């Protein structure tokens, strides 16, 4: 038995060594053997998928119809349905209600005053939890007013208030459906993968055709991107509900519907809120890209500021997005908690005494509308009182740039020479047939012949679309970033789990990094490190760090206290406790965190294309600017395939680890 294991380990080692050696010398070898096709996929073998895909989309948009109702009619109807509540909210929060158009426009009712909105969120915070929360959200909204971000923030808020309920509600429904029908889950899984990993630029053009130009298309794109985590978490949370609770529900004679809504969903509500949190974060993540196709708001402010290199203004608008995310997220969590509790109804008092806060807000609303005619400051925060820290940030970047550029340059050159370029050279040197064979073998070892087939098939598809070299650059850029993100993120997560105060600080940092649009720090990073792969890697690491930290912290915290007690009793020092008990038991969770890190790294590719990388992200971007739907989708699918291969392999690995530690049979 031991001998066999040794043999196996030997074979694995040998294969790894062969792969690396091939990577180093593959190029020369193929030249010597006169078999250039080994390294460079011959263009004569490339199967063109892009033209049929372009034609298919064209047909769908222009001709597809069931009877007299064409496909675009249906999508336009959906767009109309989303547009109505959105317009209402937008008018309420930002534009005001008007009648007539153009010069004949008459304002019937101005938008809700900043004072009223701030009071309302403070009151809502108090209602949901306590004064602490109220103060936090109040401060968030005051920031928006004082820093002159109010108008844009309200436009963004309106789109968030539409996208999040649709994403979270829709995700919940789909999740429940998949929970009830196991076949559904299996069908859904690849669809969710594609929704999450195909870069949005790849399907932007068809979406614009289907849903029309403007905020609705941006909303649809946002919903497509933000819903999958909700579906996944719903399925997982429902499965994790204690079977005894379900049995109990059955025993008292619930119908299927009652069992779902009165037993399962409430029991899983805690996990479900994690999903809602993800939807909110991802929605705000999309703000920049959504603003490119007509959503406007804060995302547009960031883009416009950076185009005129106004780093300070871009930063302030970026922070406004973070602040908005924090306020919306905390409020929605507290609200869900509040809904979970049962509050006895109060009788015998007048409506006004029972609803003091609502009354206050309504009275204020009326007052500002009436008095706002005479004192505009009651409606719009006065421009003369806005603050800005813009110049401070410009000066910070300038100071760093002028004084420390050489240091930055040295760091960059070091990383490039000893870390990034070797990885790149090796990956590009490995002959593609060998790489496909290795992936198939890896799949077979990790998860049997099904996974082997999947890995081999998908990587083969990437090769025959002729995107192999660009795919390898993608793998290199993401791989290097994921390694760095793991090296930084896992220790941070462990620290956050073991030390409460550090945990709070790290949590805030992670939330900020995930919602602060990467564009905001991308431009200063370009100024300090120039355009290139290193800059792209920094952006990816900063963005993809979050799950590595979160999952590691979660895994460490969730190690059962019995096992830790057992460790202490048998005389472990804290260090041994961490190394021998906590870390191994948290390994499956950490692996899942790395899995998510890979996903986020891949989703950043489109952004890094903006600093001039030469990978699949760039391919998608070129396709977008040439309005070449097929080319964009093919490149987008290649990214999705890489993501799926990585996801399946890591998941299989995590399952193996759990089985080894007896956490799963």
């Amino acid at each position: 038995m031991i001998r066999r294991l040794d043999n196996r380990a030997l074979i694995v080692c040998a294969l790894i060594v062969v792969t690396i050696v091939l990577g180093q010398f593959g190029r020369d070898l193929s030249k010597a053997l006169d078999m250039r096709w080994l390294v460079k996929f011959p263009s004569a073998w490339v199967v063109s998928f892009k033209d049929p895909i372009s034609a298919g989309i064209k047909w769908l948009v222009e001709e597809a119809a069931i009877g007299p109702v064409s496909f675009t009619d249906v999508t336009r109807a959906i767009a109309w349905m989303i547009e109505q509540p959105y317009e209402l909210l937008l008018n309420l929060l930002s534009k005001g209600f008007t009648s007539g158009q153009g010069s004949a426009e008459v304002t019937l009712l101005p938008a809700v005053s900043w004072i009223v909105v701030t009071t309302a969120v403070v009151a809502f915070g108090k209602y949901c939890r306590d004064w602490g929360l109220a103060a936090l959200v109040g401060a968030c909204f005051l920031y928006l007013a004082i820093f002159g971000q109010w108008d844009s923030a309200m436009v963004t808020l309106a789109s968030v208030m539409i996208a999040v309920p649709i994403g979270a509600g829709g995700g919940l429904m789909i999740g429940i459906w998949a929970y009830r029908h196991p076949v559904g889950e299996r069908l859904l899984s690849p669809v969710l993968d594609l929704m999450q990993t195909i870069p949005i630029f790849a399907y932007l053009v068809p979406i614009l055709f289907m849903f029309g130009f403007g905020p609705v298309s941006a909303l649809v794109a946002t919903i497509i991107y933000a819903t999958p985590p909700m579906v996944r978490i719903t399925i997982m949370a429902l499965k994790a509900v204690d079977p005894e609770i379900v049995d109990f529900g059955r025993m008292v004679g619930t119908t299927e519907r009652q069992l779902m809504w009165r037993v399962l969903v409430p029991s899983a509500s805690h996990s479900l809120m994690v999903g809602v949190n993800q939807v909110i974060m991802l929605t705000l993540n999309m703000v920049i890209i959504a603003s490119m196709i007509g959503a406007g708001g804060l995302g547009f402010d960031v883009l416009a500021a950076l185009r005129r290199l106004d780093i300070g203004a871009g930063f302030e608008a970026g922070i406004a997005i973070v602040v908005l995310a924090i306020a919306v997220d905390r409020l929605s969590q507290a609200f869900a908690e509040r809904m979970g509790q049962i509050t006895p109804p109060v009788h015998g008092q007048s409506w006004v005494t029972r609803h003091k806060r609502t009354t206050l807000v309504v009275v204020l609303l009326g007052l500002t509308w009436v008095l706002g005619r005479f004192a505009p400051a009651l409606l719009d925060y006065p421009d003369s009182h806005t603050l800005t820290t813009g110049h401070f940030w410009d000066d910070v970047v300038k100071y760093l740039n002028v004084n420390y550029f050489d240091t930055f340059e040295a760091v960059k050159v070091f990383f490039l020479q000893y870390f990034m370029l070797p990885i790149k050279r090796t990956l590009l040197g490995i002959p593609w047939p060998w790489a496909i064979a290795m992936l198939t073998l890896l799949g077979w070892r990790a998860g049997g012949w099904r996974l082997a087939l999947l890995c081999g098939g998908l990587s083969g598809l990437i090769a025959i679309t002729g995107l192999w070299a660009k795919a390898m650059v993608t793998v290199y850029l993401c791989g290097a970033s994921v390694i760095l993100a793991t090296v930084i993120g896992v220790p941070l997560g462990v620290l956050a789990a073991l030390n409460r105060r550090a945990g709070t600080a790290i949590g805030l940092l992670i939330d900020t990094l995930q919602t602060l649009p990467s564009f905001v720090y991308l431009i200063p990073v370009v100024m300090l490190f120039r355009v290139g792969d290193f800059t792209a890697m920094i952006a990816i690491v900063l963005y993809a760090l979050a799950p590595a930290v979160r999952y590691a912290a979660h895994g460490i915290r969730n190690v059962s206290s019995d096992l830790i007690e057992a460790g202490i009793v048998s005389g472990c020092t804290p260090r041994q406790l961490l190394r021998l008990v906590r870390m191994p038991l948290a390994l499956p969770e950490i692996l899942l965190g790395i899995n998510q890190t890979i996903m986020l790294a891949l989703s950043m590719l489109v952004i890094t294309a903006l600093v001039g990388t030469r990978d699949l992200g760039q391919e998608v971007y070129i396709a977008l600017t040439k309005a070449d739907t097929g080319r964009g989708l093919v490149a987008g699918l290649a990214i999705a395939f890489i993501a799926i291969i990585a996801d399946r392999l890591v998941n299989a690995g995590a399952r193996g680890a759990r089985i080894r530690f007896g956490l799963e049979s």
Partner: protein
Amino acid sequence: MLKLNTLGALALSAITASAGWAAESSDPIRLTLHDWSGQLINTKIMGSILQEAGYNVEYVQADYIAQFAGLKTGDLHLAMEIWETTGREALDEATATGNVVNVGETGLMAIEEWWYPSYMKERCPGLPNWEALKDCAEEFATAETAPNGRYVGGPVTWGGFDDERVEALELDFEVVHAGTDAALFAELESAYQRQDPVILWVYVPHWAPAKYEGEFVEFPPYTPECYSDPSVGVNPDMAYDCGKPRGPIWKAAWSGLKDKWPGAYDIIEDYRLSNEEMSAMVGEADLDGVEIDTVVANWMTENKDRWSGWVNQ
């Protein structure tokens, strides 16, 4: 008497004008906004003129290329800045479908070329003549590109044939593509702060030439043959041995605009601005921090005669 007459004429013209509007649709004309100030100013001036002429106008945020999808379906109606240099391909593709029309030039001319800050002239005295670059490529080198010079080109999507140009003119330069406009000028800002060597793709109308002192490199002037025929130009064996083409910035509209708002279409056709005007306005907005709406309002009051002429034709 004279006064009365003019008043009467004004009233009359107002009546005929309003009769004219009645025939046209009161639906808003949708103009697209992008994310650079010049385009915003250009579009908002056009929008203000249309409003003065009695049309309803709506501004829609849209991506430069993705907007063609909207122009084809009629979701969007007018795009004010399609650059010959970067948008021609998309524009031609769109006009070929018959759903989009080219409404002619805006009067703005796009110039795109290699550009360097003035302090580089001391280090490379032969500039702006392109042949000087042959001798002082090393001045522009960085650790990654040495001994070759480093030239920061525009995003790949802008085209520009810089890789080919470097080869054809036998310049010892490596072309590094910035992914976006913002990244491109971040490189310039960074180098300018340190007074370090830099040479990059700059275009006008833009605020950069107003903020930084510098010049365009003078390459052999562009001719269509230079791009298509290898034997033409400095290098007898290769094409692209000349500078970049310069060209107008076009107005593009949904083809239905002409039928739905014929009067507006005429105004749009007449609309012209000049590079100098535009550069001054972009500078005001981006460098002095004046609000775009203020810049537009100023132009409208200063140029009342000009735009009234377009409206009243």
